């Protein structure tokens, strides 16, 4: 891990001073690289010199470029930003200029570095705790809880009688109620066709105009087919569509009648 790579300050120092052995792969992003460079300063992260750090980073990037090492974009973005920061830190503040001061920017970068370092330290502490399956152990023989579900069904005499009455009266009602569940009227078909016909520029099978849910049940299909066909005849009469059948029993096809045909 990184800790081992940069075990001692000596190693990282050498890295910077000896024109660097550039190995960007070893770093997890520009912030990580900055954090590692900061170790050469041998100071508390709170007292770090961001200016020095920026110079080191830019030097590192420069070397990488000379060695023609391809750098990921975020390293270059950071380099540009640090170059900007460096100029802000070096030049006396311009009162006419808006935006945060160089010191503010530097303080934030220091905060970011400190925060990242803190997270690394706590991560190490966390991993060093007495861990389950390594230091502490769970019960070896477990007993799963058996869930048994009993369902009580209830019904009373009234339910029973009402149920029976329902069955016996079902037939009684038949003559009095028009059962139109399976009937698709020509009015319905006509309404549906009028809505759809505007889109039918090409020859289309009439069967494709049957409403959804009217295919499966043969009774429904029969009714829908008949009414759709009747509706198509009506529309043809009105001059809205053309209708054709290529052969006996072959699909009936319709299309919108376009003005130029007239």
């Amino acid at each position: 891990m990184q800790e081992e790579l940069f075990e001692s300050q000596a190693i990282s120092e050498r890295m910077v001073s000896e024109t660097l052995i550039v190995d960007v792969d070893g770093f997890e992003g520009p912030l990580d690289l900055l954090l590692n460079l900061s170790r050469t300063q041998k100071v508390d992260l709170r007292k770090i010199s961001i200016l020095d750090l920026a110079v080191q980073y830019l030097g590192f990037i420069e070397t990488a470029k000379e060695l023609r090492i391809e750098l990921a974009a975020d390293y270059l973005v950071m380099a540009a930003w640090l170059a900007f920061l460096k100029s802000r830190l070096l030049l006396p503040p311009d009162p006419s200029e808006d935006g945060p001061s160089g010191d503010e920017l530097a303080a934030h970068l220091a905060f970011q570095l400190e925060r990242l370092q803190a997270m690394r330290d706590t991560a190490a502490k966390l991993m060093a705790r007495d861990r389950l399956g390594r230091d502490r152990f769970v019960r070896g023989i477990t007993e799963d809880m058996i869930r048994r579900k009993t369902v009580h069904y209830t019904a009373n005499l009234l339910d029973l009688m009402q149920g029976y009455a329902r069955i016996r009266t079902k037939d009684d009602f038949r003559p009095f109620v028009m059962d139109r569940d399976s009937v698709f009227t020509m009015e319905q078909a006509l309404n549906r066709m009028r809505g759809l016909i505007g889109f039918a520029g090409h020859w289309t099978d009439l069967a494709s105009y049957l409403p959804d849910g009217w295919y499966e049940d043969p009774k429904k299909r029969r009714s829908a087919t008949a009414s759709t066909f009747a509706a198509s005849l009506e529309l043809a009469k009105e001059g809205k569509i053309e209708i054709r059948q290529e052969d006996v029993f072959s699909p009936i096809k319709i299309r919108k009648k376009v003005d130029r045909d007239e």
Partner: protein
Amino acid sequence: MNDIKEESLFEAPPIAEQERMVEAILFASAGPVSLPDMAGRMPHGSEPHIALQNIQKRYLGRGVEVVRVDQAWAIRTSADLAFLMQRETVETRKLSRAAIETLAIIAYHQPVTRAEIEEIRGVAVSRGTIDQLLELEWIKIGRRRQTPGRPVTFAVTEKFLDHFGLENARDLPGLKELRAAGLLENRPAPGLDVLSDTENDEGLQENLFEDAIEDLEDVPIY
């Protein structure tokens, strides 16, 4: 703790410490552990059998106990607490409409075959509905009908009568009574009247519950 571990290279840890070890080993092992196995894991010079005895005493009357399984030892839940390891839930559900109707038909028309139930209801009766009623022990399978295919018939049970507070199935109100009680629409279709009332009230009633009477010799004429 570290001291103990290091010392143990030379002499066995105190017996209290050994007890802790045996306890942990028994707790964490996936199966029973033998004494030699324990000794092999514990510091040199340990006497797991003594530690084990102590632990066994310590757990006496607790929620778990140290039991011997063959040549090995394990911690197990005390037998009297096994009930904690199961959860029984009771749920009350209303019988489905299909089940109620099927049950009603069986009650009024028994013994009745599945085909007859379907004819009366006008829809197929699912296997699940019949199974459910059988499971509830509200219906039972009667003898087979002496017709082609010898279909089984269904009839209601004692338990059914108990549940619905009936002395016998004849107590079920007839169609006339249902109608009088407003449970039947008072608009019979012509012809249906004859079928439902007359036959039900007389012809059917006679043969009805024949199973209950266990008049097995008599073959009903259907």
